[in-house]
C-alpha cells in the first residue's frame, strides 16, 4: 500500500496542465490561409461522387449479414416453428413469448401464440442462432415505429414471412454454419 501511495504522489507531481495551447505565430493569427484551405477541401468535395443517400425516398437494401427484426419462416403455408421455446429461453431481454399447442402435422406441435415485444428486442440474433428448425431468422427490416406500447408487440400476423422472401438470409446462415 505504501508503495502505491508514493507512486500516486509522484504521478500527481509530474502532471502537466491538461490543455496545452500551442503559441500561434502572428501569421497564423490572421486565419485567412486556413479559411482558404478549408474552402478548397469543400470545393473539391462538391465535384466528387456522393456518399449520402436520400433516405427515406431512396431505400437501402442491407446485405444478408444484416440483423433486422426477427421474423418467422413460413413454408407451405405454415410456420416452421415447433414452439420449442428455445428462442424465448435464450432471449436476453425476455422479448419472446411462445405458447405451444398440438397440430395434426408430423411436427406435432406449433405455436398457437408467438409474440415478440419489439420494444424489448435488442436485435442480438440469439433466437436465430439457437433455433433448431431454422424457423426464426433476422430479416432486413429495420424501420420500426410505434405510437403505442401495445403496437410494439408483434404477433404471428406480423411475424410470418414466406420462405421465398428470406432466401438471402437462409443462404447466408447455411454458409456461415
Amino acid at each position, binding site marked *: 500500500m505504501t508503495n502505491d501511495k508514493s507512486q500516486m504522489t509522484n504521478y500527481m507531481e509530474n502532471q502537466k496542465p491538461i490543455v496545452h495551447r500551442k503559441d500561434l505565430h502572428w501569421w497564423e493569427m490572421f486565419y485567412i490561409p486556413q479559411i482558404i484551405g478549408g474552402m478548397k477541401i469543400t470545393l473539391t468535395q462538391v465535384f466528387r461522387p456522393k456518399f449520402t443517400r436520400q433516405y427515406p425516398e431512396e431505400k437501402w437494401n442491407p446485405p444478408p449479414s444484416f440483423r433486422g427484426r426477427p421474423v418467422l419462416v413460413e413454408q407451405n403455408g405454415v410456420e416452421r416453428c415447433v414452439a*420449442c*421455446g428455445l428462442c424465448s*429461453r435464450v432471449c436476453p431481454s*425476455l422479448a419472446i*413469448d411462445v405458447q*405451444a399447442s*398440438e397440430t395434426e402435422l408430423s411436427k*406435432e406441435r406449433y405455436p398457437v401464440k408467438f409474440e415478440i415485444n419489439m420494444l*424489448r428486442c435488442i436485435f442480438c440474433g440469439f433466437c436465430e442462432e439457437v433455433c*433448431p428448425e431454422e424457423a426464426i431468422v433476422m430479416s432486413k427490416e429495420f424501420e420500426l415505429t410505434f405510437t403505442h406500447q401495445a403496437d410494439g408487440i408483434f404477433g404471428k400476423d406480423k411475424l410470418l414471412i414466406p420462405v421465398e422472401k428470406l432466401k438471402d438470409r437462409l443462404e447466408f446462415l447455411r454458409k456461415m454454419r
Partner: protein
Amino acid sequence: MVKITIDGKQYEVENNLTIIQAAKQNGIHIPHFCWHPHLSVSGNCRVCLVEVEKMPKLVIACSTQVAEGMVVNTNSERVVQARNAVLEFILINHPLDCPICDEAGECKLQDYAYKYSVGQSRFDFEKVRKPKRVELGPNVMLDTERCIMCSRCIRFCDEVAKKPQLTFTQRGDHVELTTFPGEQLDNPYSMNVIELCPVGALTSRDFRFKARVWDMSSTDTVCVGCARGCNMKMWVRNNEVLRLTPRNNPAVNDYWMCDYGRLNTFKHVNAANRIKAPMVRKDGRLVEVGWDEAIAKVGFELKNFKKNEIAALGSAYSTNEDNYLLTKLMNHLGVKRIDFVPHIRKGEQDDLLIREDKTPNSVGAREVGVRPESAEFGFASILNEIKAGNIKALYVIDDDIAADPVIADALLKLDFLVVHASNENETIKFADVVLASSTYAEKYGTFTNFQGRVQRNKPAISTLEHDRILDGMALSRLDKFGAPNDRWTTGLKRDTRASWRILNSIAAVMGAKWKYNSCEDVFNEIASTISSFKGLSFLKIGTGGAMLNKNKETVTVKS
C-alpha cells in the same frame, strides 16, 4: 455391516444393499435409467456399470450386492469408456426430438448425454421409425420411438399399481411398449409412469405442450384430493397452475400420487368461475363490493342474532388455521353449534394411497375445535334446527354444502348466510354475503391427514395479498426477471384472501381483542393451546410433515 471402498473413500454400509444403494446413501450418484429405489431390479439399461477390483468385467451397480472389502470405482477410465459406449448405443435409435418433447429439461437421457457422453454419433444410418402419438390410456401418451426400453413403467404397473397392463413386444431394435390386447393403461395410478419414464416416451396428455419445464416455478405443497395428503409439487407459469407432480415422502406417499389428485385438484384454481371480489346481496342480486364493506356488513348483521340463533360450518377442505379461527370467532360470539360436513365416499379406497374421506383435513378440523360438544350441536341437529327455524344465521367456510339438495332446501329458511367461497357454486346462490376466499394454492397453512400427520401447504399462486419475491414464494425465470409492463410475465392476480385472514377481520369488527399478522402466528397459537399440536412449529413440520402428539388417541372421522 460391511466395509466397502467407493472411489477411494471407505464407507460402512448394511450388507444387504446393492452398490448403487450404498452409493446413493453416501451421496454418490451412479447414473441409471432402469433402476428405481421402489421398483424391482431389472438391470437392462447397463448405464450404471462400475469397476469392482478383482472382478474381471465391469458390473452393473444396481444388481451387484456389496461385500466385505469390496473396492468400487465409479469413474475409472474403463467405466467412463463403457458408459460412453452404452449411451452411444441408446442414442442410436433415440430421435432428436428434444425441441418437441415435453420431457426436455427434466430428461435423464438428455442430462446424461450432456454429462457422460462424447456428444457425437458415429452412426449415420436411418433411425428405426416407430409409431408416435400413441394414446396408451386416458391420461398417458406414448411416443414409441423415444422409449429406451428400461421397463420401469411395466414394473410399476405390475408391482406398485398391481395392474399388469403394459408389456414389451418384438425383439432387438423392434421392441415396442404396448398395452396387453384389449387393455388400456387406465389404472388409478397410471400417470406415475410419466415421472418414472427417464425419457419423453410417456408424457401427460393433460399437460401436453402446455409449457416448457424451465418456464415454470415449482412449489412444495400437499394434495387436497383425499385424506392421504400426498406430498406434491405445484408447477406454475404466469400465475397459473399447469401441473402437479408427486414429491417423495416415505411416510405418506413414497414417490407416487393418484391420477385423480393429479388432475382434479388444481383446475378450479385457474377456472373462469373464480369469485374475484367479495359480494353482498342487494335487491336479490349479488353485487361485488370492497372488502371493508363486506366485512362490516357481516359484523353488523351477525350482531342482530342471538347466540343460539347462529351456527357455523367449518370445512375439512380448509386449513387447520382457518378452522381454528372459525372456532375462536364462534367462541367469542358464544355460539355452540359448530361442525363440518364430511365428504366420505364409502368404498372408494384402496391399499396404496386413495382414501374414502375425500377431504384433506377432517382430522385437523376436529382437532382444532370444529366439532360439536355433543350430538345435539352436531351437523344433523344444525340442519334440523335450520328447518325448524330456530337457527337463523349460518356461517360457512370453503365448502359447497348446497351441492347436497337436502341441505340446499334447508338453506332457504335462513335469514342470513355468510359463505367463504373461492368459486361460484351452489351455496353462494343462497348467500347474503360471499367472501372471496383463496384456494389452497394461494395460501399458507397446515393440513392434518388421516394418519395425524400435520403437513404444510404453501402458496404457489399469488393473489393481491402476496408479493412473490418479498413473501419468499417460488419464482420462475419470468417471475424473477420479467417487468411489470410485460403482459406475459404478470398473470392474473385475484383479490381473494385466505379464510383465516377474513375471519381475523370479521373478529376485529365484532369486537374481539385478537389479531394475527401471519398464518404462522395462528399456527403458533394452535401449538400452544391445543395439546395434540404441542411442540409443533412451521419449522418443525418442514417439507416432510410432523405427527400430532401420540398421547391423545387418534381421532377417527365419523361418517
